[in-house]
């Protein structure tokens, strides 16, 4: 009786198929956020002055800091993938951890920002907001929904990276099988791209 070898090298991996599937999912994400950007575009066109006024409440400091944070996290994510391809497992784990830390910093900033706005009375259905003009109500509604759903995506990304970090430590993600890390990277970069558009639309319309 021949011994059946269930070693890792016998597993069938469809590298291109897995990557393709991830890109298809990213396409649906583009449509998801695209729909919200459509809402933003239309309401800003209809309530131009109100959007300008409401945007004064935004903190350029926090918006810019978060942009730099996410751009840097994309760098660390990309470097983690190059590292695993070179079989530099520890380097890859360090870069993955750095990405997580930057992601948490982004969320921390978001919490500070939202807290400020909520304390000032600008939150969905607040009496102060409902007393304002229609355009301003729409701006804040869009702000909370779009940055909120984006923030959920950041949180999901962080969670997945933590999971992949553990897999990397256990050598289940390695230089011969790294598609999970690569797909995670694709998701993370998309989250970054969405913020690249959110930043000018909410923070740079003074």
């Amino acid at each position: 009786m021949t011994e059946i070898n269930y070693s890792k090298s016998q597993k069938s991996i469809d590298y291109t198929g897995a990557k393709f599937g991830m890109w298809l999912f990213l396409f649906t994400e583009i449509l998801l956020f695209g729909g919200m950007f459509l809402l933003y575009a239309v309401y800003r066109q209809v309530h131009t002055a109100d959007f300008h006024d409401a945007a004064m409440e935004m903190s350029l400091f926090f918006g810019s800091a978060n942009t730099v944070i996410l751009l840097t996290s994309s760098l660390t994510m990309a470097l983690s993938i190059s590292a695993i391809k070179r079989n530099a497992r520890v380097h890859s784990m360090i870069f993955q951890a750095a990405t997580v830390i930057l992601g948490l910093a982004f969320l921390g900033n978001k919490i500070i920002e939202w807290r400020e706005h909520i304390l000032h009375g600008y939150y969905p259905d607040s009496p102060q907001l409902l007393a304002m003009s229609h355009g301003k109500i729409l701006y804040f509604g869009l702000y909370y929904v779009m940055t909120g759903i984006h923030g959920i995506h950041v949180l999901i990304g962080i969670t997945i990276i933590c999971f992949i970090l553990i897999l990397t430590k256990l050598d289940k993600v390695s230089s011969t099988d790294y598609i999970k890390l690569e797909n995670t990277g694709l998701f993370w970069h998309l989250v970054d791209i969405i913020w690249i558009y959110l930043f000018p639309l909410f923070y740079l319309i003074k």
Partner: protein
Amino acid sequence: MMNQKESPHIVGTRTFVFTWIALLLLTSLTIKVAEMQMGRLSMLVNLLIASTKACLVLWVFMHLKYERRIFKLLLIVPIGTITIIIGLTFFDIWYR
């Protein structure tokens, strides 16, 4: 077995760092443009800068430059869809 005919192409650290620096420079540029307050022109320029940044992330960080052509072609589908949806909506909105 992972198909080694796929791109085991490893992008160098330098490429990633230069792209990151370019992204940071474009970010500071977009903030400066907003401060100049040229109204509608500011918004248009900032959207163009944002799109440039997005392209850099897609091309380099997301490895699209080194992927096979079908990936690049299929990306046009959601981009084109959203562009058409927003564009055609504006043909309505502008004339209300």
